[in-house]
């Protein structure tokens, strides 16, 4: 079979997808040959702080998932390539979250600095029209963390999670920070200090908007 170096046209893409749905035994191979390298390279390019091996595995996962369940793709919503990118980003995010959970080193957020690569990554993701999401923090929170070149403390991670979920109640933050036994006024001060610190870092990276 001939190798394909570029993206497929929309009609070629739909034809390949139709072959997957119809059970053409050669369609899974064509899908992988067409998209695996492109998808992996795209992930590596947009996640410069992430191990390329993790990017490759996430790309494989996305392609295998589509082969096993081709109806998960809705052709009227987006192109096949965009669907695969979103799916692979989701896989990568889950992988990074899992690794983050088990990371041994815990460095407080205020003693580290952002890298130029992190800024580039954040800019690239926002600027990529292929992503059909609007808020950066919704795209790939775990990757943002990875690119901040920090291992957040467990508490800081949970605060960041709450922030991205739009949580506004002080008691929710106080609970994850383990300060619910302190006076409410003090809880507010501590919560605000931690949130401001995280926001400041993300603002400097261009990745936070209220």
């Amino acid at each position, binding site marked *: 079979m001939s190798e394909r170096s570029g993206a497929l046209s929309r009609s070629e893409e739909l034809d390949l997808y139709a072959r997957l749905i119809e059970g053409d035994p*050669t369609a899974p191979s064509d899908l992988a040959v067409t998209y695996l390298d492109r998808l992996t390279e795209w992930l590596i390019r947009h996640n410069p702080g992430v191990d390329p091996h993790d990017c490759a595995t996430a790309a494989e996962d996305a392609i295998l998932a589509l082969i096993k369940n081709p109806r998960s793709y809705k052709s009227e919503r987006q192109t096949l390539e965009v669907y695969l990118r979103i799916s692979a980003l989701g896989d990568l995010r889950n992988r990074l979250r899992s690794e983050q959970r088990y990371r041994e080193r815990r460095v407080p957020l205020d003693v580290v600095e952002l890298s130029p690569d992190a800024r580039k990554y954040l800019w690239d993701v926002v600027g990529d029209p292929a992503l059909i999401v609007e808020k950066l923090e919704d795209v790939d929170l775990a990757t943002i963390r990875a690119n901040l070149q920090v291992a957040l403390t467990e508490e800081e991670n949970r605060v960041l999670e709450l922030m991205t979920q739009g949580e506004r109640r002080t008691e929710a933050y106080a609970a994850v920070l383990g300060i619910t036994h302190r006076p409410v006024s003090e809880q507010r001060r501590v919560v605000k200090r931690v949130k401001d610190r995280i926001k400041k870092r993300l603002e400097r990276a261009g990745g936070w908007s209220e």
Partner: protein
Amino acid sequence: MSDRIDALARRVVNDPHFLASVLWVYARSEGVDDEDLAGMLGCPVSTLAPLALCRRPRPEPPFFQQDVERIAQHFGIRPETLAEIVRRADALAALQRGAEGDRGFLMAARDATEEVNHEENRT
């Protein structure tokens, strides 16, 4: 073919959805390497990885023949050889399942015997 396609083909050798599982079982049982396998199929070695990422042919007639011919035509390989490889791998897998079933049956029988003996010794 890219190294990533090779890696993906290796990743799915134990997944019965893919032809990779068939090719792997056959190559292992017959003691053939990639060059031998490619020679038998009439294709370059570089074709083996994308070939392995095809869906395994459905076993029921007439789908088996249709799938084998479709794959053979797509990759320019010998359909009769591919069919033979799939059948041989299926037969080996059936034999293995049978052997495991026998082993399971014998183990269950032995357990039952030991249990009876244990009960007899207690009484």
